[in-house]
């Protein structure tokens, strides 16, 4: 098991090293990068929109359910919702969902290209396939996932406010007052640092499993599943590590 870990880790590092070479045509690489930004960013917006709204709503209702003491002001609910969403839910929960959405897409796309000899065809043309296929995906994910996490944060807080107001837990003014209480900008930096790391993990790990598929259609499915599972586990490890280091 240990040996296999080092085998994969070594190959993973070699894959990353292999990405760095002078692009054959910068314009084509840029086009590929922009395409990935659209696929990852715009393509995942729908699911991020839905989970963020509900995540915020549920957090407000559950926080209100637990804060029953009359000496705690209602605005505290908003404060808890804000910090929970910014510190944990927006970056981590969104990234776990994105590991499923983006990770499986990257792994299956590259796996299919490997099986159908499209990667060999690119190699034969004299193109650095790691640089052309993998690097734009990793760059796009490290750029777009923080953007999606920021959107998830805003939508989560807005969803929390709407849920609180609609259910009569607290008024809109109380929520806005709570949002402004003891706000630390560092928390936003922390969330962005986490989402940046998660973006790198999701794209690179999924690309590694997809790029190295051997066999047929069954192996593409297996690679996809492995990519999502490993990405999720590594996201959680990284979440703990960054929390321990940065907070």
């Amino acid at each position, binding site marked *: 098991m240990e040996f296999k870990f080092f085998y994969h880790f070594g190959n993973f590092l070699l894959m990353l090293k292999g990405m760095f070479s002078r692009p054959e045509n910068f314009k084509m690489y840029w086009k590929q990068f922009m395409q990935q930004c659209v696929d990852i960013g715009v393509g995942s917006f729908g699911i991020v929109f839905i989970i963020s709204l509900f995540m915020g709503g549920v957090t407000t209702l559950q926080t209100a359910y637990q804060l029953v003491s009359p000496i705690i002001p209602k605005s505290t609910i908003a404060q808890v919702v804000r910090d929970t969403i910014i510190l944990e839910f927006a970056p981590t929960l969104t990234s776990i969902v994105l590991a499923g959405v983006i990770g499986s897409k990257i792994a299956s796309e590259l796996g299919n290209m490997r099986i*159908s*000899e*499209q990667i060999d*065809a690119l*190699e034969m*043309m*004299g193109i650095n396939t790691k640089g052309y296929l993998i690097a734009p995906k990793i760059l796009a994910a490290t750029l777009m996932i923080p953007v999606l996490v920021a959107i998830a944060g805003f939508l989560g807080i807005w969803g929390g406010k709407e849920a609180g107001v609609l259910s009569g837990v607290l008024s809109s003014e109380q929520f806005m007052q709570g949002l402004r209480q003891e706000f630390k900008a560092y928390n936003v930096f922390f969330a962005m640092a986490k989402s940046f790391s998660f973006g790198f993990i999701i794209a690179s790990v999924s690309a590694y499993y997809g790029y190295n598929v051997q066999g047929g259609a069954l192996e593409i499915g297996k690679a996809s599943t492995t990519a999502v599972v490993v990405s999720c586990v590594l996201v959680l490890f990284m979440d703990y590590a960054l929390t321990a280091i940065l907070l």
Partner: protein
Amino acid sequence: MIELQDITKSFGDKEILKGVSAVMESGKVNLIIGASGSGKTVMMKCIVGLMTINTGKILYDQEDFTAMEEKEKKLVRQKIGMLFQGSALFDSMTVEQNVMFPLDMFSRDTLRDKKKRVMECLERVQLKDAAKKFPAEISGGMKKRVGIARAIVLNPKYLFCDEPNSGLDPQTSLLIDKLIKELTVEYNITTVINTHDMNTVMESGDHIVYMYQGKKQWEGSNKDIVFSKDQKLNDFIFASEFLREAKEMRQLDLFKDGSWRDQLKKD
């Protein structure tokens, strides 16, 4: 011209290529034939650099490909066109975009010139009307022809075809063979085809290398095959009773027109 000098390739303990030497001549269709597992696909992948050989040399026009740096290898690869067994077309691109891809990547021509070149290539493979279609919308034979158009769009010096007729009906196979042969002569390309299609062997085999259990068992042309006394080659090529009879009839024809004399001189 491509020259193989005593190349070997192993996977673990298993030796796949056992010291193969051969010369692939320019302006000719060079075939690598052999039963499944004889090492012909590995040999082709070694020649194009998708696999690295253990020992020996591969020379492209007298330049040692095996000793080259990755940068130099990339430059050689840009002179190679390759048709893959499954065509390897990019699913998300139209036929036109597939053929234009190598031009987009490596050519500094204007878009208008690139489009003109793409149309020339598609016209050459009789697929001008399919330019806007996606690979999923065209037949297997058409995919192969798109693969050929993509392979020749940069005017390659070397053309490699991995089983170009697999999964195609006999008529389409002949069409593909004819096309490859014409392009080889027209552009004086060094063409290497990996096949076990007997029609290709008899119709296009200017130079044939027969592989048997990782070794070069026999070398010659499609005319030589008819007179070959190599038992393993004969068992492979003329596997059925029908083909054995066809061989005897062909020998009779060649005997009548005097070609047998040249063959006797060779022997």
